[in-house]
């Protein structure tokens, strides 16, 4: 009976690293598929408004300026680069390199969130708020905050996830063969980056 129990644990719990990687990667891509949909809806909601209210968008762009958000864009791109460099180090067998690079990812992600907070403060002081206050600026506000804040929430989750990866790596849980956890986090983080690429263009530039 005990042997059977053990076998059950094995069968329900663990597969070989290669199979696990294959399963996890596919699942992550499918998860990203649903994220694509949700972000498309949020961005579309914004774009519809933006195309019909060019002067409001222009006014907000005047108020917010481009410097902060451009800086933020570079920060997020760098964090994505750090992420993939970390994975590369791990695949080369250098676990310490992984920890260093993912640490940079987490740090850059934190800075991104902090700067986004600063940006939100600037905007809300200028009258762009989430809830309806009776002007076109708040009509803009709700459509602007929904996608960007949803993206910001993804960055926060990503930073926590990165810290979890570091914690795991320090305990020696990853290796050049067993990198599924890092790879999956990478997919998520790069996806968040891709979303930002589109948010940046559609919301801040156009």
């Amino acid at each position, binding site marked *: 009976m005990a042997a059977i129990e053990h076998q059950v644990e094995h069968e329900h719990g663990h597969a070989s690293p290669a199979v696990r990687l294959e399963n996890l990667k596919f699942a992550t891509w499918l998860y990203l598929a649903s994220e694509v949909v949700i972000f498309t809806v949020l961005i*579309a909601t914004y774009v519809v408004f933006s195309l019909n209210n060019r002067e409001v968008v222009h006014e907000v762009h005047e108020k917010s300026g481009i410097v902060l958000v451009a800086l933020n864009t570079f920060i997020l791109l760098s964090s994505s*680069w750090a992420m993939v460099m970390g994975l590369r180090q791990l695949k080369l067998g250098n676990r310490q390199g992984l920890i260093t690079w993912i640490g940079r990812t987490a740090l850059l992600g934190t800075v991104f969130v902090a700067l986004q907070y600063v940006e939100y403060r600037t905007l809300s002081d200028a009258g762009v708020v989430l809830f309806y206050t009776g002007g076109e600026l708040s009509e803009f506000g709700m459509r602007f905050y929904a996608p960007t804040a949803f993206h910001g929430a993804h960055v926060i989750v990503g930073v926590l996830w990165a810290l979890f990866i570091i914690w795991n790596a320090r305990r020696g849980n990853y290796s050049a063969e067993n990198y599924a956890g890092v790879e999956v986090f990478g997919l998520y983080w790069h996806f968040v980056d891709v979303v930002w690429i589109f948010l*940046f263009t559609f919301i801040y530039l156009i």
Partner: protein
Amino acid sequence: MTDMSTTTQAEELAQEAHDSHSADHSDKTVLFGTTINAPVYTVVFGALGALTLFELLIAELFPRNFLTTGLLVIASIIKAVLVVLFYMHLKDDNPLYALALVVPLGIGLIAAFFLLAVPVTGY
């Protein structure tokens, strides 16, 4: 059906994927015949940064019109494709994963274009 063995599809797929990632490990990148002394990821990062600068220049220097908007959209699409192909390894991975991005994007865009049309038609 006679070769039914204990392996699953995943094990076969994992076997196929095993030998694909060799390019990631190289310290050199060959770009248009020139060899650059950096990993491919860094080169992609450089391209992303350059494209972002290009976008910023267009956005700041020129007024928004059909041409500039189009250029901005195209630049952002190129950036996204670069990240997906290189950082998310879609270049070497199963093409099926591309469907996981393209199909929902297509469906999302149908919805988006429809939503775009609604205010124009008067509602």
